[in-house]
Each structure stands twice: as structure tokens, then as C-alpha cells.
């Protein structure tokens, strides 16, 4: 069975004053029907650019996609679609929510008109039908008094409510895939939990696949089926969520896990990863993580590591990872 969304050899680069920034470099992954895939990594690792590339929301120029890149949705390469055909996908088949709900909503339009606009962009509903549907959607995402709030402007709502509006808008055309780019990062912790619960509940009710992007590995433990870890514009480890958490094979993933606080181990000291993410204009040679890696060997700095399958459906791109069957 082919996946709903197949990303193959995706490279997205930007022309900058200090050279070509290869923000996403040869990334491939699948998103299956009904699955939640978590894409995790530090700021600047390319996860948001990956998400935006899927719907071609990167401005070209300065952005450009590599010639080998393919983003196949139901077998169609989105990178080859005309602008008109692409619009049929955006919002209708694949919808997206963003990190900052406040700035992602237009400040001078009511939330209702922004949802109505999304509905009418893909359907033949009248304004009245679309407004009724918008009220239903606001009810669905847990906005109190939706009949009244539909006429509110974004600034009259809290951040959590704004994100609910974004979710309602994203779901308005019953998309098959929801891309959530750090949807809870800008919110209070208690609100974060509510939004996560809502997203997972709606995912099941709508039968959607979710690509969930975050810098917080802890968030993924409760919601993801599979996890892909990004570093330096590449996916360095990918596997089923329990395997990633219990048997991380890449030193970077191991480092990330040590940086996540555990509620059952209150005294354990949190350890960060020394150093910072390198810039996309000058990635390190070999394995891009080698300057920060505590387990590096000589070849790490010169040779790009291969895909090592450490167990079924669990791949790490690391010279020191142990292949399955050897120990």
C-alpha cells in the first residue's frame, strides 16, 4: 500500500547574501492514512521549511526546490502542479495550522469571515450556508458562544481560542492531512494540553493524518505513532514512537531525550547538548552532528553516514549506530 503522502529527496534552499542556505537537504518520509507523524528538532533544523514546502508555501525566489524533489499526494507530485491545481489541494486536501495564532489570523477580518472564506474557496456553499457551517466548526473546536464569537476579531480572543479558530478553519473542508507546525509552542502549558487533546480527538473523528512539527520531544510521546528526528536539514533518525523513546540509536536523539524532564524522575539532572545548530549556509562535512557529538569517530567528520536499520522500521543515519542482528 502506498502512503497518502510520500516526500522524496526533498531539498529546499534559499539564496541568501552569505550563499545558498540548504535548509532542507534530501529529506524523504511517508505519512500513512490515519497516522500521526512527529517531526522533531531544534530551531533551525529545517522542520518548518519541510512543512511549508509540502504546500509550496515557500516564496520562490528566494526559495527553490531541488530537481530531484518529489512531494506525492495520492500519487500526484505537488511540486509539478499548476498554481490553480495546487489551490485545489491547499486547504481542501492538506490543511495547515501555525505556531503563532495571533499573527496567523488577519487582524482586520472577523474570525467568522476568515472561516467562511476558507469554506467558500473550495465549495459552492452560499455565504449563509458557509456561516452556519462556521458556527458548527467553532462549536466543534470548543469555542463558547460560537454564534456570538463568530463576529469577533482575533485580538478579542485569547491565544488558545485563536488557535481553536485556526483549527476550525483548517478543518473546514475536511482535509485528509493536517500539518501542525508547533501549534502549541506559543501557548500556556495548560492550554497546550487542551489543544493537543482537541487535535487528537478531531484527528480520529475526521480520520485525518497529522504531520506534527515540534521542538519538544515530550509532546510527541503522547500523540505520535512515528517520529522523525531532524538535524541540520536532514532526518537523522526515524522510527515507531516507542522505539525512538526506548531505544534511541542516534546520539542526537539520545541527547534530546536527556533534555526532556521526566515527571517520575524529579531529581535527575537535565542535560543539554553542548554547542548550537550550525547555519544552513555552511553545514559541517560528513555527519552534520559530528562537531557536537560525544560518540564521534574519525570517519564522522569526512563521510556522510549511511542508513542503518537498527530494528524493524527503525532507521538511524549514524556511523556508530548498531545494525539489527549485530550487538
Amino acid at each position, binding site marked *: 500500500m502506498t502512503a497518502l503522502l510520500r516526500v522524496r529527496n526533498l531539498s529546499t534552499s534559499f539564496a541568501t547574501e552569505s550563499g545558498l542556505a540548504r535548509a532542507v537537504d534530501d529529506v524523504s518520509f511517508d505519512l500513512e492514512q490515519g497516522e500521526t507523524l512527529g517531526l522533531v528538532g531544534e530551531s533551525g533544523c529545517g522542520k518548518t521549511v519541510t512543512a511549508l514546502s509540502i504546500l509550496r508555501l515557500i516564496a520562490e525566489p528566494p526559495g527553490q526546490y531541488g530537481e530531484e524533489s518529489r512531494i506525492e499526494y495520492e500519487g500526484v507530485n505537488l511540486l509539478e502542479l499548476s498554481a490553480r491545481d495546487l489551490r485545489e489541494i491547499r*486547504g481542501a486536501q492538506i490543511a495547515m495550522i501555525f505556531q503563532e495564532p495571533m499573527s496567523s*489570523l488577519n487582524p*482586520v477580518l472577523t474570525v467568522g469571515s476568515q472561516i467562511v472564506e476558507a469554506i467558500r474557496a473550495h465549495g459552492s456553499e452560499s455565504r449563509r450556508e458557509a456561516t452556519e457551517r462556521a458556527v458548527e466548526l467553532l462549536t466543534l473546536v470548543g469555542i463558547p458562544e460560537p454564534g456570538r464569537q463568530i463576529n469577533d476579531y482575533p485580538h478579542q480572543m485569547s491565544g488558545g481560542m485563536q488557535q481553536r479558530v485556526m483549527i476550525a*478553519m483548517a478543518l473546514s*473542508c475536511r482535509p485528509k492531512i493536517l500539518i501542525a507546525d508547533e501549534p502549541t509552542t506559543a501557548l500556556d502549558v495548560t492550554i497546550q494540553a487542551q489543544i493537543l487533546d482537541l487535535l487528537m480527538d478531531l484527528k480520529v473523528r475526521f480520520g485525518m493524518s497529522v504531520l506534527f512539527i515540534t521542538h519538544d520531544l515530550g509532546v510527541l510521546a503522547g500523540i505520535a505513532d512515528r517520529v522523525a528526528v531532524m538535524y541540520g536539514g536532514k532526518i537523522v533518525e526515524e522510527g515507531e514512537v516507542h522505539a525512538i523513546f526506548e531505544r534511541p540509536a542516534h546520539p542526537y536523539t539520545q541527547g534530546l531525550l536527556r533534555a526532556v524532564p521526566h515527571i517520575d524522575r524529579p531529581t535527575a539532572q537535565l542535560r543539554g547538548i553542548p554547542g548550537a545548530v550550525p547555519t544552513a549556509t555552511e553545514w559541517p562535512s560528513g555527519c552534520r552532528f559530528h562537531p557536537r557529538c560525544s560518540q564521534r569517530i574519525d570517519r564522522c567528520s569526512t563521510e556522510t553516514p549511511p542508513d542503518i536499520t537498527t530494528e524493524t522500521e527503525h532507521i538511524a543515519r549514524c556511523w556508530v549506530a548498531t545494525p539489527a542482528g549485530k550487538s
Partner: protein
Amino acid sequence: MTRFLVRRILHSVAIVFIVATITFLLVHIAPGDPATAQFRDRPVSPEIVAQYRRDWGLDRPLYQQYLSYLSNIARGNLGQSFSLNRPVSEVVLQALPNTVFLAVAALGISFAVGIVIGTAQGATPNSRFDHTLTAATLAVFSMPIFWFGLMMMLVFGQWLGWFPVSGATSPVYSALPFLGRVADRLHHLVLPALTLGLGGSAVVARFHRAEIAEAFAQDFIRTARAKGLSERDVVLRHALRNALLPAITMLGLSLPVLFSGAVLVEHVFAWHGMGLAAFDAVARRDYNVVTAIALFGAIMVVIGNVVADLAYRRVDPRTRAS
């Protein structure tokens, strides 16, 4: 809201007072006075000149003239025109409709043209189209407006013969039927309004291009695209709507520019409005007319700004009183 209005009106009164004072001082400091201007071409005895000054109260100390001027305008009395020997209010009211007619047309042209050009440029930044229009608007903006007016006359009046180049109406105006009069007025309006309006549109376009480009960098534009909206809807519904808010402020700010531009354009096109009246009055040192027109200008500008502020508060939901 009421407090805001009261404060703005008090500000406005203060501004008008300051403008009245400065204009009064300026016209009196300028070399010459109504008497010298009046008898410039006629050799008359000094006694006659002195008598003229006495008659008009120009021999009194400046502070006395200033105080009586202030008390007069406070009572709505603009005084008498020296050179025309008519009440100033009559002179101004006669000139006002033509100027308002020209200014409204020019304002309409400058914003309609400027916003269309600015939006088109801002939506395709750094394209060849954008660069060409930037050069064109800069050229129009850099041209002295009277020269631009003369070129318009030369091309569309002299060479092509499409439009009349002088006056607000034809000599046969009063003999025309109603619709003919309307057509005649509009026909005369085209060149002066285009001259004044296109000069303004260059400023509006450059300003609006930046606003559109800034709006395009906002996150909600990405959201609009992610929803699957057409690029047309993204521009018109999302970017333009946000970029129009600053344009409202600009509308208020452009009134003084329009007013000062009108002085030159009216002169070039012999358009009998406030600008031409002001021009003649300055040449004749007609103090009362000059200060009255400056006062009118100040009042119009101040009202324009208050209206723009109110409009802004009305349109931007974030500043609307909740």
C-alpha cells in the same frame, strides 16, 4: 470617544490660532505693503500714499493691527480686500467651490491611481514591472508641478487638442443647457486635475507599495495561501485591506500638499480658485485675503486630519472603542 473628539478639537483650534499668527507676521514682514503695491505703477505724492495707509489702518503699530485682526476673525469678520475693495469672505467664498472641485478630483485621482500602482508593485516586488513603475513614479514625483502642468497643456491641449488649457469654463458656458454645462466643467477639469492628481499619485504609489510589501510579509498572508485562496483574493482581501489603513492617515496628511499644489496648478491653468486668488493677493500685498486663505487652508487641513483619524478608528477593529 467624546474625550478624544474634544481633545482633537482643542488641538485644532490651537493650530488654527498659530497658523493665523504666523501668516499675519509673515505677510507684514515681507517687503512692501498694500500701499506700495497699489501705487507701484503710478507716481503719486507721498501724501496720497500716507492717506491710503491711514484709511486702511496700516499706520497703526503692528501689535494693534494684530489684536484687531484677531478680534475680527474671532467674530468671523475677515475684513475687506484692499485691492478688490470687496469683503474678503466674498472673495474666498467665490473661489472656494472651484478649488474644492479641483481638489476632490485630484485627491480621487491620486489615491485611485496611486493605490492601484502601489498594489501592483507591492504584489510583484523587485520584478521588472516593479522597477519600471518605481522609475516612472519617481520621475513624476521629481517634476516641478507647474512644469508638469505646462507639459500636459502642450501635449494634450496644444498638440492633441483634446482638452481646454485655461479656465474652469468656456466663454459660452452660461448659454449651455444643464448637461452641456456639466460636460463643459468636466472637460475643463481634466488637465488641472490630472496634473495635481498624478503628482500626488506618485507619492501615494511609493508609500502604498511599501505598505503592501510589508503586509505581504505577515503570517496571515501565508494562512490565506494555505487555505487555497487565489492570489487575487490574497492580494485584495488580505494584503490590500491591511495596507489601506495607513493610506487613510495619508489621505489626511496629503491635504496640505494638495492645497499648496493647487496654488501653482490654478495659476498655470488660470483656474479661478483659492490658489489663484492667493497668488494674486500675495502679489498685491492684500494682507486680509492672504491671511484669510491661509486660515481657510489650515482649517481644511485640520478637519481633514480629524476626519482621517476618525475614519482610521472606525476601520481598524483594534482601535475601535469596545
